[in-house]
């Protein structure tokens, strides 16, 4: 195994944090905050660090984001808060690193719980314990609700536990922040798969669905079911399960691996394969600029020796002499498709062959909710919600996270969970008045 340490920069010392925080200009109506989906009060928490009030700083972050430490590690800060930092005078403030510093400080000094209101007698059932579900649970606990999270897997955390590789997200941080949500009062029931939503919803005053987007978008080309071709998400999950239980992984990759896709799952899979000692190539059907993956992750993958082939579209998989062969066609950018990016147009259909021992597919995720009975979804199975409240088409049922957007950031899921929690509170308060 290659050393995973060089994927994360070292934790700041207290002095480094205070000095860095002291550079912050404390802008009015701060642009950094506008760049944060969770609307983290960045100026305030950074000023608290500058004043050495580290416990106050972490509490400020948790006011808007219960997964402060988790997001500090995996947020694409270069595309969010730090990207917006007023940089005419100086380089951006290391907001992510500062948030990570106070989150670690909090873990080492006994995590500070935020105040909760008196129990209000209402209960909310949450499906899924990923970032959206945890965030909704935390906000509802603060408001005095009785909260039960149902998690189908053996362990809570959703994508944080089963998706994101440990080289960029410390499992200890995830575990502690889940414990934090539990300490705020949320009950987490693992191994609890929801059968029919209608029956489930009878037990609660409101429901929040945060089930993520786990169904891999199928690649409908010749040979997609050949042995040795895996879904990247399954590979990542297998790695995490192996780590969590201290067992060898079920999926063992050969020396040469081809990853197909341009999102964060593709990059995570490529980097994980690289860490396992593989030679890794990523093929993507559009240009580098059109990749949905975070720029910082793409750079990291390049630095770690992952090779990229842009404007390559897979035509078929086959086996030749015991090795897998992928035939790729070259593409060129066409007119914009419904995502706003140029559609890839095939240049010649004869294709070019690339050999590999294994192939990992990461061409997109869709949501699937087997227990669904009547909630409006779009063509990808994503739940349609009211943006202001997180309300679905079914009264009393709310949703957020990847299940509504198909796969964005953890911090977006946190923001969705919080938004829906406030929507649920409004719904229940109004209902109570009309009763």
């Amino acid at each position, binding site marked *: 195994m290659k050393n995973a340490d060089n994927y994360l920069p070292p934790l700041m*010392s*207290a*002095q480094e944090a205070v000095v860095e925080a*002291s*550079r912050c*200009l*404390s802008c*009015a109506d701060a642009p950094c905050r506008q760049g944060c989906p969770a609307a983290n009060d960045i100026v*305030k928490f950074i*000023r*608290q660090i500058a*004043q*050495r*009030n580290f*416990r*106050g700083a972490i*509490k*400020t972050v948790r006011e808007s984001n219960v997964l402060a430490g988790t997001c500090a590690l995996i947020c694409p800060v270069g595309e969010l808060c730090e990207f917006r930092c007023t940089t005419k*005078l*100086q*380089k951006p403030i290391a907001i992510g690193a500062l948030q990570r510093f106070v989150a670690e400080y909090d873990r080492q*000094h*006994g*995590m*500070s*719980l*935020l*105040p*909760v209101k008196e129990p209000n007698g209402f209960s909310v059932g949450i499906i899924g314990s990923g970032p959206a579900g945890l965030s909704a649970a935390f906000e509802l606990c603060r408001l005095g609700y009785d909260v039960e999270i149902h998690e189908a897997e053996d362990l809570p955390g959703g994508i944080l536990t089963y998706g994101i590789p440990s080289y960029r997200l410390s499992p200890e941080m995830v575990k502690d922040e889940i*414990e*934090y949500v539990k*300490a705020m009062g949320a009950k987490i029931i693992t191994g609890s798969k929801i059968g029919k939503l209608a029956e489930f919803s009878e037990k609660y005053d409101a429901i929040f669905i945060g089930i993520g987007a786990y169904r891999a978008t199928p690649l409908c080309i010749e040979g997609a079911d050949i042995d040795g071709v895996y879904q990247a998400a399954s590979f990542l999950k297998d790695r995490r399960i192996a780590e969590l239980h201290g067992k060898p992984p079920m999926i063992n990759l050969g020396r040469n691996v081809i990853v197909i896709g341009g999102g964060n799952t593709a990059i995570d899979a490529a980097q994980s394969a690289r860490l396992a000692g593989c030679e890794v190539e990523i093929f993507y059907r559009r240009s580098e600029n059109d990749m949905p993956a975070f720029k910082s992750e793409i750079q990291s993958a390049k630095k770690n020796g992952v090779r990229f082939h842009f404007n390559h579209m897979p035509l078929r998989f086959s086996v030749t002499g015991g090795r897998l062969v992928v035939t790729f066609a070259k593409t060129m950018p066409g007119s914009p498709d419904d995502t706003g990016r140029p559609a890839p147009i095939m240049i010649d259909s004869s294709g070019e062959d690339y050999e590999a021992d294994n192939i990992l597919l990461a061409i997109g995720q869709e949501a699937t909710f087997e227990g669904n009975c009547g909630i409006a979804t779009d063509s990808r199975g994503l739940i349609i919600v009211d943006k202001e409240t997180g309300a679905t088409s079914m009264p009393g049922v709310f949703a957020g996270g990847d299940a509504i957007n198909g796969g964005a950031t953890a911090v977006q899921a946190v923001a969705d969970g919080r938004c829906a929690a406030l929507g649920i509170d409004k719904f229940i308060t109004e209902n109570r008045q009309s009763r």
Partner: protein
Amino acid sequence: MRMATQTNLSVRFCGFEMANPFILSSAPPTGTGEMIKQAFEAGWGGAVTKTLAHDRDLLANVTPRLASLSFAGRSDEAKKLYGLENIELITDRPLDIWLKEIGDIKTQFPRQLLVASIMAGGNDRVGWQELVRMCQNAGADMLELNFSCPHGMPEKGMGMAIGQDPEVTARVTDWVKSVSTIPVIAKMTPNIADIRVPAKAAVKAGADAISAINTVAVIAGVDLETLAPLPNVFGKSTHGGYSGPAIKPIALKAVAGISLDLQVQVSGIGGIETWSDAVEFILLGATNVQLCTAVMFHGFGIIEELKDGFAGFMEDHGFTRIEEFIGKSLPFLTDHINLDRERKMISQIDEATCVKCDRCVISCRDAGYQALTAGPDRIPKVDRNRCTGCSLCVQVCPVWDCAKLVAA
């Protein structure tokens, strides 16, 4: 996990139960009733109005009114302020408008402490007593007597001209007390050999509390192009009042001295920017604190961080009420003659965190006792026989907790 706690930040000052000890001092942030309301909305525990006077005593302001001592910083840093000089005057708004605003504020914010700062001449008994009656009738909770403005007003026998003369200080305080029905705070100037003398005169004359300090009389600098001192008002300049972090140590000593010598509540002022500054003033005897310069730079919103950090300190030390630690650091103070001369400490450099700048070596060589030498590895070595434990190395070391003193 640490359970969420609700720290009680209230404190009793001259019989008034304040929600928290943070007060806006008499200065530009309290320049209008509307601004004071904004501050109360943001969570400040109290405010002292910009100083009110009879319309006949008002003087027009000049431009500019500010100059500062700042650290330019590195090329990738913003400039940082050490101290701010101002030649701003007391309010330039008519008294009747102010009196109406005082009533408005108290109707809307009955639980916040509203102090009317007032000023008249050292010989103007009627003027002082009229101001007292008008302000208390308007609804002010307390009065603060401005005996300390260091620029402009002293030339008219007001402000610092009163605070620098204990006799006049006592006389005016007595006039005020003879008609006041609400508590009276006397605000002291540091521009005097011993601030305890006028403070004592005011207390003897009946002042219910002392606020200290007002600004320090200074010249912030000279413009090396025009050769005019700052601030430059169309080719002329004058000294002003200095505030901000630079004056905090001066204010701490004043507050400690007054607290040790007099049985009186003190409102601490001078260079308070953070919760920890506020804690220090209270540990040295202040009951509450007043701020201005920090608000001039960061706005009313800093009250959030002030309260939060302050509550964190109380939680860490197990204090449940501010009264439990007012003056708690005063017993440590003694005369120099009483300090321990027997025990010694010497320097120790932490090799793990040393950045090998060897600044301590230069300082010790040229301004100390030649006790530090740098070897080929550039890590300073301490000569135990030469080191006298002055701590210059600790002061110049750029790293936290690298150079420190240990038992000899």
